[in-house]
């Protein structure tokens, strides 16, 4: 879908070949009783920004590991362009680049050397590497400190350096593992802007995140992962459209002393006009706070119009409303809808 946007350059003349494709990919680590990645399949078109969204431990990083030759698949196939990653890891490495979660910059050499040596590993001629390094250092706001070793830098700067380094050999596919985790808001916006520029230049981006906002903002399509499986895969808009209703109404209810809720409460809420679906949410016990019952109503039309009827309904059953939240559905809601759990 994204590949046919205007201005996108396809690096691959054979439009039939996806930039990345995984087929029934499985990883089970030794001594583990379950599959870390459990038979996932998807394809990413050249120039697309593809997000893998899920909580920690969902299998996102392992999936990236298999696509980037660092994790050996137990079964299934991972392809970068037309290269089978497991069969020809050396060629796959020449096509891809990785920006990991934690800094792995070379601390013995300066930022500039980090970039130029990376280019040399990939066979970029020295003069060309110097030119690209200057360009990228400027673009990423690193020029002034280019000759300093990287251990003196903040997380946001390290992230920028690693993206700049990754681009030195002009990869066809760039993998970013949790690109903005641990960054302050300004650094995050900076990284997002750089990623959008890359997308506009036709680089295929695959990113993992547990931040639904990041996924919705950057990704053309999002795969929602949990327990090693892809539960849903579509554009953020389509995923949210797939939720029942067009808006949500989240209620916090002070539960009975025993924490219980009257039988048939959910059914009664569902019978209110305009309510599409009702979901009981996982309790998030606060310190010393009385037990809460949290429930989300997926609503067609104006959610605010339902506040009064629900309050009346709850009061009739002897329950008191303690909080109300109106919202448009987000990817977080999609995740909750699919798994019954929040993302974190």
């Amino acid at each position, binding site marked *: 879908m994204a590949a046919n946007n205007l201005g996108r350059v396809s690096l*691959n*003349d*054979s439009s039939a*070949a996806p930039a990345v494709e995984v087929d029934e990919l499985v990883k089970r*680590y030794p001594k583990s009783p379950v599959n870390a990645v459990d038979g996932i399949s998807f394809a990413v078109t050249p120039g697309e920004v593809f997000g893998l969204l899920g909580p920690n431990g969902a299998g996102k990083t392992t999936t990236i*590991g298999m696509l*980037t*030759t*660092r*994790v*050996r698949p137990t079964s299934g196939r991972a392809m970068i*362009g*037309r*290269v089978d990653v497991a069969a*020809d*890891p*050396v*060629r796959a*490495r*020449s096509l*891809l*680049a*990785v920006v*990991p979660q*934690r*800094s*792995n*910059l*070379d*601390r*013995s*050499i300066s930022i500039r*050397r*980090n970039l130029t*040596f*990376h280019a*040399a*590993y*990939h*066979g970029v001629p020295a003069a060309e590497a110097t030119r690209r390094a200057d360009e990228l250092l400027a673009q990423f706001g690193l020029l002034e400190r280019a000759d300093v070793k990287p251990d003196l830098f903040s997380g946001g700067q390290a992230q920028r350096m690693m993206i700049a*380094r990754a681009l030195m050999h002009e990869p066809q596919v760039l993998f970013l593992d949790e690109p903005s985790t641990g960054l302050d808001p300004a650094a995050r916006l900076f990284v997002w802007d750089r990623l959008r520029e890359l997308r506009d230049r036709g680089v295929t981006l695959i990113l993992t995140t547990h931040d639904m906002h990041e996924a919705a903002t950057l990704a053309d399509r999002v795969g929602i992962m949990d327990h090693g499986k892809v539960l849903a895969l579509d554009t953020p808009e389509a995923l949210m459209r797939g939720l029942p209703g067009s808006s949500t109404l989240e209620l916090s209810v002070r539960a009975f002393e025993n924490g219980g809720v009257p039988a048939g409460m959910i059914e009664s809420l569902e019978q209110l006009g305009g309510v599409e679906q009702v979901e009981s949410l996982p309790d998030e016990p606060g310190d010393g706070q009385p037990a809460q019952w949290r429930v989300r109503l997926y609503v067609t039309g104006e959610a605010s119009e339902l506040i009064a009827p629900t309050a009346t309904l709850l009061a009739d059953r002897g329950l008191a409303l303690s909080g109300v939240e109106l919202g448009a559905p987000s990817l977080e809601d999609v995740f909750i809808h699919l798994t019954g759990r929040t993302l974190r």
Partner: protein
Amino acid sequence: MSAVSTPVSPASQARAFSAVLRRDLYVTWKELPVFLAQVILQPLFLLFVFGKVLASLGYTQHGYSDLLFPGLLALTAVITGMQTLAFPLVVEFGWTREIEDRLLAPMSTALVAAEKVLFASLRAITATAIMIPVGILVLGSIPWRWSGVPLLVVALVLGSMLGAGLGLVLGTAVVPNRINIVFSLVFTPLLFTGCSQYPWPSLSRLRWFQVVTACNPMTYVSESMRAALVPSVPHIAVWVCTVVLIGSLSVLLTLGVRGFYRRAID
């Protein structure tokens, strides 16, 4: 896309290999004083105390320093090779993850390990070569035979690679929080059972220790060095040394590369 079906050319893998080697040489060059201090201090003190001080005080027999010097060359080669490879490797895999950028270079993972071995061997050879002028400086004169130089070179190369092989095995087998204990458990016995301070045949009076030292491959480096520089001192036959060294080297490199793959690829 015909290019995709052909394997990555050996030339481009060689380019990646040489770039990684250049990176290591560049870092060594930038930190030259540290490198020199690291490799020279220990053998320098051994040489000074055992070869000079004890001899001057009359605690060692005349000629002991002639016997010690080739042994210290062996020691320097093996220990430098091992240290150059093992410590940084544990740190790179365990903490800094610096090695990841090289593991993702378009070259086979075995070549990344091979570069480590080559670089460690080069450093070990350099460090050992530096010991020759240092020996002249400390002892006044060293045992030297030009006709023994070819054998010396063979022993030097095999000894350096042996150290690198040991380093590769240790560096991939040890988890970071165990590094101190493992290294002291390996390092000290290796240092003192490698026949660098005494010739092996002379141990016949201490039979059990002779057996122990025969199990340390460094013994065969020390014996070859003595065969090259002081052939009049009884030593293990050169062909035995060479066979044992090549054998140990193959075992260590096989284990080490296997360990490297285990650490590099999950």
